[in-house]
């Protein structure tokens, strides 16, 4: 199968998925990107967002909160700090994450402000996208 790639989703505590996929939509730090077979080798960091894997067995969507993705021609591995299947995301979980990020943003120095504010905005966008 020339047009599939090996997709791995790994969190620090365990491997969440290891499947064949035709395309993987990754929420990259500089914007979304879709990895397909024979993609140029790329490493990108992630922003909080939705990760969608399309494969022979259908579509799976995960909410991820940062980490990075390692894309090569034959495989894509996403190392997410936290990844949860879309159906298991709860409002409390999102609220907790947003609250943490907001306190961190409030405490951050002026230099780090951009980064922390973006994190809060990304989390809020993720919450809206999840729709909880």
């Amino acid at each position, binding site marked *: 199968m020339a047009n599939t790639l090996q997709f791995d989703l790994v*969190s*620090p*505590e*365990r491997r969440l998925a290891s499947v064949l996929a035709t395309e993987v939509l990754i929420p990259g730090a500089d914007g979304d990107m879709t990895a397909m077979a024979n993609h140029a080798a*790329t*490493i990108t*960091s992630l922003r909080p967002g939705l990760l969608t894997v399309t494969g022979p067995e259908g579509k799976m969507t995960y909410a991820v909160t940062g980490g*990075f993705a*390692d894309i090569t021609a034959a495989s894509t591995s996403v190392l997410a700090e936290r990844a949860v299947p879309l159906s298991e995301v709860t409002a409390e979980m999102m609220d907790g994450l947003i609250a943490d990020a907001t306190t961190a943003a409030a405490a951050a120095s002026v230099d780090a402000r951009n980064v922390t504010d973006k994190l809060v905005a990304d989390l809020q966008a993720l919450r809206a996208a999840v729709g909880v």
Partner: protein
Amino acid sequence: MPSLKALKNRIVSVKNTRKITKAMQMVAAAKLRRAQDSAEAARPYAERMMAVMSGLAASVGGSSTAPKLLSGTGNDKVHLLVVMTSERGLCGGFNSTIVRLARGKIRALLAEGKTVKILTVGKKGREQLKRDFSTLFVGHVDMTEVKRVGYADAQGIARDILARFDAGEFDVATLFFNRFQSVISQVPTAQQIIPAIFEQVETESTLYDYEPSEEAILADLLPRGIATQVFTALLENGASEQGARMSAMDNATRNAGDMIDRLTIVYNRSRQAAITKELIEIISGAEAL
């Protein structure tokens, strides 16, 4: 010669001890399996992370703008030692081996005129190190409440270490923990985490595109890498603790068995002696008549 009753009591008490150590051994065996599973499950992430980071470090490391976490602060005057031990005892030499390694390192550093700061994780190590180096302590992480080590725990410790680093409290950080090899063998290990050291791994020479820039990714990854290293160390330590406890309790159970056998022989012998003595008294009494 203790009385029969005293002997009997001792046998009963040793039998009770054996029951307890046997139960502890079985609990440790069950926990060990779980600890090993989680250590196993965490491995892919840690390995991937290190591979990517060492690739990045190799390409960025030389430049003068490299992050401090990688290049260091430029001197190595103040050392932070993070000593990881268990919260509970009864696990053989587990805690002592770590503490011995840490103590050796502390003495060596002090002899070189460096400043040493100690951060302990786990109660047992703190108790042992407090005796000699109570003035060097800067903090302690209590894991008593933690039933199962999660990534969040490691993140907490890593955040603490990073905050101290950003505040300029130390130049070099080293982790002390036991690396799990097998049930009977745990290797006390010292691992330097700041500045980061990477083993030169032979990476396939794929040329990667980086998004955003290499340095931005590296700056993002290094703190995560520290959390990952702390997490790995915690898991290894957890598995080692259970392994050490299991073999210690196995030994204790066997010792208790031996002791019961010996005591039973002594008990039977003195019971026989008592009977013989009584018989002799009766017979000699009858003959005297």
